[in-house]
């Protein structure tokens, strides 16, 4: 795939720009008009997006087809209504994010599914103890993890992001009243950044990063089977975990029956690879992660908000596999 096509298709160049504008607009409007008044407007915007963005529709249809085939549940097969439903879910998601940012969504309103006690560890680690890594997904609403950071105590959570819009995003977070979360831009892992992150872990801070989006200029990616078809995932979170030798947990926040539910699952007690087995280890972790993600897609089938081409086009599978 040449650079230009990659640029056209890649989420970091196309999607964020649009959604950042949409968010800014939404943020402003929510403050001016309130959620109840704004909701219909946002639905209209999303309807427009639905009608005009043919490729986004196609990608959602593809996702729903793969999910239905992979799970063997014919009820999940796409229809015009189900594809539209996913766009509407995105509108709801945007509105919810704003509630989160403005502190409207309290921790008490969120159900926590944390069978192995990861959140208590997070709260404890600021009083001594080493930080850990949280791998976050764009399935559902990652921003709700901020609700987890609330509850009186400041939780030392650093969110690592790839895109170049961090400055804008930080400003937007500031405008929305969110100052508790730190965004750190990581375009490439380098020695200074590694040292900084390592020191943060030693201080008991945690690192959160997305496990399901491949940064444009980082060649470190790995192809695994996701919902029955090959898709590329980033190696970044796993390399980072292995280099820092820290535990990895998975964080996913889904809206089920109108209520947010945060799933915290332990994934690796300590990320380590044997000499010469690094690629195989990362491959195995990412495959296990993709399988886990697939299971969570079934819990909230319409909350997959990757509107770009997620899977490899069939003809480039062979060449990209390298």
């Amino acid at each position, binding site marked *: 795939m040449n650079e230009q096509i990659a640029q056209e298709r890649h989420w970091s160049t196309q999607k964020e720009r649009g959604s950042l504008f949409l968010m800014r607009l939404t943020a402003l409007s929510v403050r001016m008009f309130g959620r109840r008044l704004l909701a219909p407007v946002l639905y209209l915007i999303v309807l427009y997006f639905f009608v005009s963005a043919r490729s986004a529709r196609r990608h959602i249809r593809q996702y729903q087809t793969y999910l239905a085939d992979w799970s063997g549940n014919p009820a999940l097969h796409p229809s015009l209504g189900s594809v539209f439903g996913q766009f509407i879910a995105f509108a709801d998601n945007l509105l919810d994010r704003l509630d989160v940012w403005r502190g409207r969504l309290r921790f008490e309103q969120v159900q926590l599914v944390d069978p192995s006690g990861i959140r208590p560890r997070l709260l404890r680690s600021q009083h001594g103890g080493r930080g850990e890594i949280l791998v976050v997904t764009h399935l559902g609403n990652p921003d709700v993890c901020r609700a987890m950071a609330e509850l009186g105590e400041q939780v030392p959570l650093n969110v690592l992001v790839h895109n170049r819009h961090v400055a804008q995003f930080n400003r937007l977070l500031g405008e929305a009243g969110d100052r508790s979360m730190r965004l750190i831009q990581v375009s*490439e*892992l*380098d*020695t*200074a*950044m*590694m*040292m900084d992150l*390592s020191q943060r872990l030693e201080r008991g801070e945690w690192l959160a990063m997305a496990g399901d989006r491949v940064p444009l200029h980082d060649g470190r990616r790995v192809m695994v089977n996701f919902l029955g078809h090959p898709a590329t995932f980033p190696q970044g979170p796993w*390399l980072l975990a292995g*280099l*820092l030798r820290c535990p990895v947990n998975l964080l996913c926040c889904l809206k089920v029956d109108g209520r947010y539910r945060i799933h915290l699952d332990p994934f690796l007690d300590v990320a380590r690879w*044997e*000499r010469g087995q*690094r690629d195989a280890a990362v491959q195995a972790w990412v495959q296990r992660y993709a399988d886990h993600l697939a299971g969570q897609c079934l819990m909230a089938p319409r909350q997959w908000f990757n509107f770009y081409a997620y899977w490899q086009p069939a003809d480039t599978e062979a060449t990209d596999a390298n």
Partner: protein
Amino acid sequence: MNDLQQEITQLIIDTLNLEDVTVADIPPEQPLFGEGLGLDSVDALELALALQKRYDIRIASDSKDARQHFTTVASLAAFVQSQRDACAK
């Protein structure tokens, strides 16, 4: 091989889990990357992290300089020594 070179060689072996390799197997002038010991960029990060912790020094990001320091054990030792001297002053 001086003490620091020996120490760094051992650190490389321990950090990267090089099995069946002893300090004597890595001459100070042998290239660490590519042809020589065959390390790659992720190994370099792991090594940089270990060195920074062990010697309480800072290694600047992927500058050309940083890459040169990592060429051989000898160049690493020289770099660590210069950083320590700089701190001692």
